[in-house]
C-alpha cells in the first residue's frame, strides 16, 4: 500500500515528480505488454516504434512551445504538409526520382523558409494584433489546407529519389535515423526553452504578457520568434513525412494534431501557458507510442488504441487532481 501511494504521490506536478510519475507509468505499461506479447520487447518492435514516434514527436515539440507562450498552434499538420509539398515540387522540378541531392537540399531549405514564414505570420498577428492564438492558427490551418488542396487538386505527389529513404527508413549504428534527428532537435528545444534568455521570455510571456513587458522583456518579439520556430519544426516534420511515406498529400497526418495536444498535457504542460518542460513530454510521447504499439501487438484494433489514449489522458488528469493528492496524502500518513 505505502509503495503504491508513494508512487502515486510522485504523480504530482513539478519537474522531478512529473518525470518520476511518467516513468512509473511507462514501466508498468512495458511490463504489462511484455507479459501479454512475447514480441513486445524485441528489436523489431522497438525499431518500428523508433521509426514511428519521431514524426509525432516533432509535431508535438512544434505544439509545445506555443502552448508554453500562452497560445496554441493548430496549423502544425498543414504547415508540415505545405512544406512537404514545397520539397516535393522542387524535387519534381529537378526530375523527380532522378533528382540529385542538390535538389533535395534546395527543396528542404525552401520548405523550412515556407514553414518559418507561416509561423512568423501567425506570431506577428498574435503579438501585434492581439488576436487569440486559437483563432489565428485555426485561420492559418484553414488557409493552408485550402491552398494545398487547390494546388494539388486533392491528389498526392510521389516518386522521390532513393536517397531520401535514408532519412525516413535508414539506421545509424542500429538507431533509426528519424529517432536520431528527433533526439537532436528535442535536446536543442530543451536548451532553447530552459537555458536561453529567449526561452525564459517564452515562459514569462506565457504566464503574463503585460507584466513581462513591464519588466523590460520584449514579449511581442518573443511570440513572433516562437511561432516562427514552431513553423520551422513543422517544416522538418513535413520533410520527414515525405521521406517516410515517399509521397506528399495535403491532409496527411491530420489525426496527429490533437494527439500532439494530448502529449503536451500528459507531459504536464500547463494548458494556460507558463509552465512545463520538454523531458516529461518526451516521456509522454514514448508512453503513447508504447500503448499504441503494444495494443497493436496483442491484436487490438488501431481505432481502439486511439480510444485507449483518450481514456488514459482522462485517468492521468484524475490522478493529478487535488482530491486524489489529498487522498494519497491521507493514506500515506504514518499514524494509519
Amino acid at each position, binding site marked *: 500500500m505505502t509503495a503504491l501511494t508513494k508512487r502515486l504521490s510522485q504523480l504530482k506536478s513539478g519537474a522531478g515528480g512529473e518525470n518520476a510519475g511518467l516513468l512509473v507509468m511507462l514501466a508498468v505499461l512495458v511490463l504489462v505488454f511484455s507479459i501479454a506479447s512475447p514480441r513486445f520487447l524485441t528489436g523489431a518492435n522497438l525499431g518500428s516504434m523508433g521509426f514511428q514516434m519521431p514524426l509525432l514527436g516533432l509535431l508535438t515539440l512544434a505544439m509545445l512551445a506555443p502552448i508554453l507562450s500562452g497560445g496554441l498552434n493548430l496549423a502544425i499538420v498543414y504547415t508540415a504538409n505545405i512544406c512537404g509539398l514545397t520539397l516535393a515540387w522542387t524535387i519534381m522540378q529537378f526530375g523527380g526520382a532522378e533528382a540529385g541531392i542538390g535538389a533535395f537540399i534546395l527543396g528542404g531549405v525552401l520548405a523550412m523558409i515556407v514553414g518559418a514564414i507561416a509561423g512568423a505570420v501567425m506570431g506577428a498577428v498574435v503579438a501585434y494584433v492581439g488576436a487569440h492564438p486559437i483563432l489565428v492558427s485555426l485561420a492559418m490551418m484553414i488557409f493552408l489546407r485550402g491552398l494545398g488542396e487547390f494546388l494539388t487538386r486533392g491528389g498526392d505527389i510521389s516518386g522521390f529519389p532513393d536517397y531520401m529513404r535514408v532519412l525516413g527508413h535508414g539506421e545509424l549504428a542500429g538507431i533509426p535515423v528519424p529517432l536520431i534527428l528527433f533526439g537532436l532537435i528535442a535536446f536543442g528545444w530543451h*536548451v532553447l526553452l530552459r*537555458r*536561453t*534568455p529567449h526561452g*525564459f*521570455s517564452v*515562459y*514569462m510571456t506565457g*504566464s*503574463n504578457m*503585460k*507584466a*513581462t*513587458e*513591464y*519588466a*523590460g*522583456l*520584449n514579449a511581442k518579439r518573443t511570440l513572433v520568434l516562437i511561432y516562427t520556430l514552431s513553423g520551422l519544426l513543422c517544416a522538418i516534420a513535413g520533410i520527414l513525412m515525405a521521406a517516410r511515406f515517399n509521397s506528399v498529400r495535403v491532409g496527411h497526418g491530420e489525426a496527429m494534431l490533437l494527439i500532439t495536444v494530448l502529449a503536451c498535457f500528459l507531459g504536464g504542460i*500547463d494548458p494556460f501557458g*507558463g*509552465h512545463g518542460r520538454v523531458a516529461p513530454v518526451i516521456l509522454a510521447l514514448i508512453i503513447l507510442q508504447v500503448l499504441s504499439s503494444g495494443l497493436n501487438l496483442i491484436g487490438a484494433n488501431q481505432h481502439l488504441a486511439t480510444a485507449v489514449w483518450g481514456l488514459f489522458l482522462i485517468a492521468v488528469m484524475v490522478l493529478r487532481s487535488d482530491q486524489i493528492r489529498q487522498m494519497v496524502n491521507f493514506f500515506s500518513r504514518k499514524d494509519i
Partner: protein
Amino acid sequence: MTTASAERFALRLHKVSKAFGGVQALNKVDFEVRAGEVHCLAGENGCGKSTLIKVVTGVHRPESADLIELFGQRIDRITPVQARELGVSVIWQDLALFPHMSVAENIAFDDLVGLRPKSVRYGEMTTRAGKVLERLGVRMELGAPLHSLPIAQRQVVAIARALMNDAKLIFMDEPTASLTQSETDRLLDIVRKLSAQGVAIVFVSHRLAEVLEIAERVTVVRDGNLVGVYPTEGMTQARLGELMTGHHIENDVSARDLPDAPVAFQARGLSRHGEFHDVDLTIKAGEVVGLTGLIGAGRTELAHVMMGMRRADSGDMQLNGAPYRPKSVRAAIEQGMAYVSEDRLSLGLLQKQSIADNTVISVLRKLTSVTGLISESRKADLVRHWIKELGVKIGAPEDPISTLSGGNQQKVVLAKWLATDPKLLILDSPTVGVDVGARAGIFRIVRQLADEGLAILLISDEVTEVMHNSDRILHMADGRIQQEYDPRTISVPQLEERIYA
C-alpha cells in the same frame, strides 16, 4: 432569543481556539461585535483574522469554544448556510463576483440560484437590485456588465449583494486596499450609512488612518492571541501599529536637505495630452521626492512616460545630465530607470512563476555566459544575494511568488529592480496590500537606498506615507504639479486639506 444580549450584540465569541497542523491560528480569542457597530479587526498578515472570520461563517470548525452566539442565538456548530441565513456576510478582497454578468444579476445572484428551478424575472430582479443600491445611496447602471466598472463600484455591488441577503453582520476584508483616497471616503460613507441602518460592520484593514476614522472599537489580534479591545477614541496610529506588531514603529518626518547632491533626473515642460501638462520635476541623487494627489491627477501616467511605456507629446527629460528619451521599457531600464508598479498582482510580478525567476527577469543579460546560455549558478547567486540583502522571507527560491505575503512579494519586486542597478527608482503606491510591520521594513530599505545615493520618486495617495518618507512633497492635481511642500513645515491634516479641498 429575547435576552438583553440579543439586542446589544450581533456576535459574541468566547475563548475560541483553532489550530492547523501544529500552528495555533487562534488561541482562546474573545470577539464581540455590537449590533449596528462599526468594529475593526486589526492585526498583521497571518495573525488569525481570516481564521476568525471563517469560524464565524462556519467555514472552519473551532477545536474549542466557550460560546458562539449570533444575534443572541447560541449556536453549537455553525454551518456556512446557517450563518448566511442568520444574516452573516463576508466580502472578501477578491469580491467573488461574476465579471460577465450585469450589476443587477450580481446583486440578485443568490435569488437566481434557488433550489427549485424557476424562470428569472428580470424586471423584478432589476427593481429589487435598484432598491438595495438606493438604500446605499448609490446610483449605478444596473444593466452594465460588472467588468466594465471600476473596482470601487464593484465593491459597492458586493455590499449590495450582501444586503440583498438581509445581512445584519458584514465582514469586509481589506475593502480599501485597491481604492484611492476619494473612493475610500465614499466607501466609508456607505459603511456609516449601513451602521445607521443597524447593520454591524467588521472592518479588516491595514490602513490604520481609516480604521481610526471609521470604527468605534478595534479588536487587535497578534499571532493568534487576543491583544485587546480598544475604543478608537484617543487611539493613535502609532499606538495601534505597536499593538499589532508588538514593537515600536518609527513614524517621524525624516526629510533631509541635500544641497550638494547632483541632479539625477530632470523633466522640463513634460506634457501628454489629456494626462498631464507642463510638468517640471527635478530629483537629486539620494533624494526621496514624494508625489501625491488624487487618482486621475496624472501621477501614474507621468511615471509611465518616465519609464518609456508611453511617449510624451512635448517637453524633455534628462537622466544624469544626458538627454533621456526612452523608446521602450527596455531602453529605460538600460539607462537606469526602475519602476515598482502600483499593480503588483498583475503588472509588478508574474504570480505563477517562481521567486527566483521573478527576481532575475530584468537582468537576464547579466546571467548569460559567452555561449548565450543562462548560467544557473550565476542566477542562484544573484537570487541568494538579493533575498539576503532585503531580508525576504521565503521557503525555496523555486516556490511560486504567490506563496509569499504582500510585503515579501513587494520586497522581491524591489530586488528585481535593484538588480538592474538603477539610478532612479519610481515607487508607485508601494505599500498597497502590505501590512504595517512589512511597510516599515520596506521604507527602511528605501531610506537606506536613498542614503546610498539612489534617486527615488515615491508616488502615493496615503498622505502620512509621503510625509514620513519624503524629503520634498509635490502635490499633483488635474495633470499639473500644483505646489511643493517641505514635510518639516506642514502637518498631515494641513496637507490633506490642500489635497482634498
